């Protein structure tokens, strides 16, 4: 069984996605155990993270792995060691998988060229965040009754696409699942050539609903981007790009990779509404990352190559 890195989902097939989600379900149901017994999983976080780091660590431990955790505080990373040197060190220590979070796009791919161990990208800059997209697919499949139920569903991806690694992984993942995607954002929060995705751009959540959106996937708006340069105000943003209760009347589901700015991306009391999959997304983190680590280290039989 070969190992494989998870740098992005661009070259991951539909069958492979299904296989990972199936494996995640097996992990959640407890029908697979100890897949990583005797393996060492290294978490190298060059950027602070709460839910992603915790969920990877839990996932690794539940599969029986030993976990080495380096974060930007109190480690070689905080002493200014370079990405490549850290990866080489972890490789020398016998890491069986390296889970990397880094503020610059392309870091995971750079790291993978300096280690024999598989690299799992836990988010690199505005680049990719493949495990987030996988857990989103998992949570959504579960809510809709299975992976095949995603096909033909209309999803609006809303907000700061420009700075979002989540969007750059979710767009190919949702596309492969057969979903029809539209983008809802002001042009100041879209990449200049967003047209390269070939997706329609809509002016408001209202418009997305009018066009039949069944899933409203909201992206986090960083605080420093809330006023001034790219958008005028939180008020105007929330008015056109925020999900409000009125958007849920037709049964639309709401998603967000977290952490949510209540009252900005999603109206405060909608975050924990029945239509909100935000808690489900968090819950999907551990089983999906268990499956990813299992596949990455070659501990699971793979259906598709």
């Amino acid at each position, binding site marked *: 069984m070969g190992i494989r890195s998870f740098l992005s989902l661009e070259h991951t097939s539909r069958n492979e996605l299904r296989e990972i989600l199936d494996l995640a379900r097996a992990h959640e149901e407890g029908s697979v155990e100890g897949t990583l017994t005797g393996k060492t999983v290294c978490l190298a976080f060059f950027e602070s993270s709460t839910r992603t780091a915790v969920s990877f660590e839990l996932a690794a431990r539940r599969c029986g792995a030993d976990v080495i955790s380096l974060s930007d505080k109190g480690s070689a990373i905080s002493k200014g060691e370079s990405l490549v040197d850290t990866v080489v060190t972890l490789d020398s220590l016998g890491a069986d998988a390296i889970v990397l979070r880094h503020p610059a796009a392309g870091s995971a791919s750079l790291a993978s060229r300096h280690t024999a161990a598989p690299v799992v990208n836990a988010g690199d800059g505005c680049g990719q965040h493949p495990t987030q997209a996988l857990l989103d697919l998992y949570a959504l499949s579960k809510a809709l009754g299975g992976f095949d139920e995603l096909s033909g569903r209309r999803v609006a991806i809303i907000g700061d696409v420009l700075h979002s690694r989540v969007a750059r992984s979710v767009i190919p993942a949702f596309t492969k699942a057969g979903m029809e995607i539209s983008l809802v954002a002001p042009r100041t929060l879209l990449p200049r050539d967003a047209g390269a995705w070939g997706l329609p751009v809509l002016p408001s959540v209202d418009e997305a609903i009018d066009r039949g959106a069944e899933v409203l996937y909201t992206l986090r708006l960083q605080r420093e981007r809330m006023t001034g*340069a790219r958008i*005028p105000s939180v008020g105007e943003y929330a008015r*056109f790009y925020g999900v409000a209760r009125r958007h849920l009347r037709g049964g639309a589901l709401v998603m967000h990779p977290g952490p949510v700015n209540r009252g900005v991306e999603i109206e405060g009391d909608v975050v924990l509404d029945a239509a909100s999959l935000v808690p489900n997304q968090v819950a999907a983190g551990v089983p999906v990352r268990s499956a990813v680590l299992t596949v990455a280290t070659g501990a699971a039989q793979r259906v598709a190559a």
Partner: protein
Amino acid sequence: MIPTPTDLVVRNARVLDPGAGLDGVMDVRLAEGEIAEVGENLRGTRELDADGLHLFPGFVDVHAHWRTPGREDEETIESGSASAAAGGFTGVVMMPNTDPIVDSPVIVSGLARKIERESRVRARISAALHVGLKGERLTEMRLLKEAGAFCVSDDGLGTASAGVLRNGMTYARSAGLPLILHCEDHTLATGVVHDGVAASLAGIPGSPASAEDVATATALILAAETGARTHITHVSTALSAALVAFFKDRADVTADTTPHHLTLTDDLISTLEGLYRVNPPLRPDADRDGVGEALRAGVLDFVATDHAPHASEEKELPLEEAAPGFLGHETAFAALHTELVLAGKITLPRLIEAMSCAPGRWMGEGGSLAVGEPADLTLVDLSERWTVDSGTMISRSSNSPYLGRTLTGRVVGTIVGGELVHDRTGAQLGTRG
């Protein structure tokens, strides 16, 4: 067709509308606020004899400062719109550099209500492109649009940061708002008049033409890159006009120049009178002729007046201390007819295209005598010679650079939505019922 009770026929006017392809002595019937019919021997319940007068589509001015809110001593919506009507203008865009700046939805909706009550002409609101026109934070353009803003502008100050301008243009495009840009680089524009011979001899601090040209180039490059619908206002140099020409098919861009930049030059600086301070400043002959040629050729799409009233205490000052700006509405047509048309520099149809048709198309309303268009039109006596006099100005202010000059061609009547909103001689335009 049975005349409706409210209709009005303007009879025997020399009708000229190059946009609609009209040129000849005809009657125009107006009904229910629209142009109902253009032809011969039309009858109506009310008739207006326009024998000997020219009838043009109403002039449209996309650049006016009506000083409301904040300086109602200089102009109000009532007086500004009356002044516009007296100049034959039936549509106007109000600029946002008032006190307070028009940068919030509540100010826009307040202005919209005031326009509804007071304006004699169709007035549109330009909101500010950035908060306080400080060039930092973008305004809530989508909410401003909902409140009634027609476009956004940085007029009066410009946008110092190209980065802010680029984001502003990109966001305005998303909001579906056109931009009117004032192109001026303040690191270069450190003087009060054009930095040329007249300034050098008079010892008045000059701002170089590059202050406008550099900013115009920046705006045009960003317009091409962002795809924003961009209008460059008060182009005053030959080089800026050439830059506009270069970008004409590379960006969604239009441009205007003003009557004063087309007719006056910086030799007026030698008078040392504060009256002649304006921004952008009056330029030398070569620039005046360059923008004139660009207007003739259509590189500059139309004329806008930059009507900028100032109280006498702001103009009766040394040039360096005077407020910049000229009145524009009431003299625009006469000055251009006298200095350009009668001098053989542009044709009358091109002037009407530049004062009515082209700005009307930009506004999306007015500037056309085609059937079904708003009944906005202007009646002009092309042969009347008159002397510009501060005592007869309709505006609350009197800072016209043409004071004392004798001009040929005078607006005698202006009709907006089928109603006479300016009637200079009363008796001459008295309608027969």
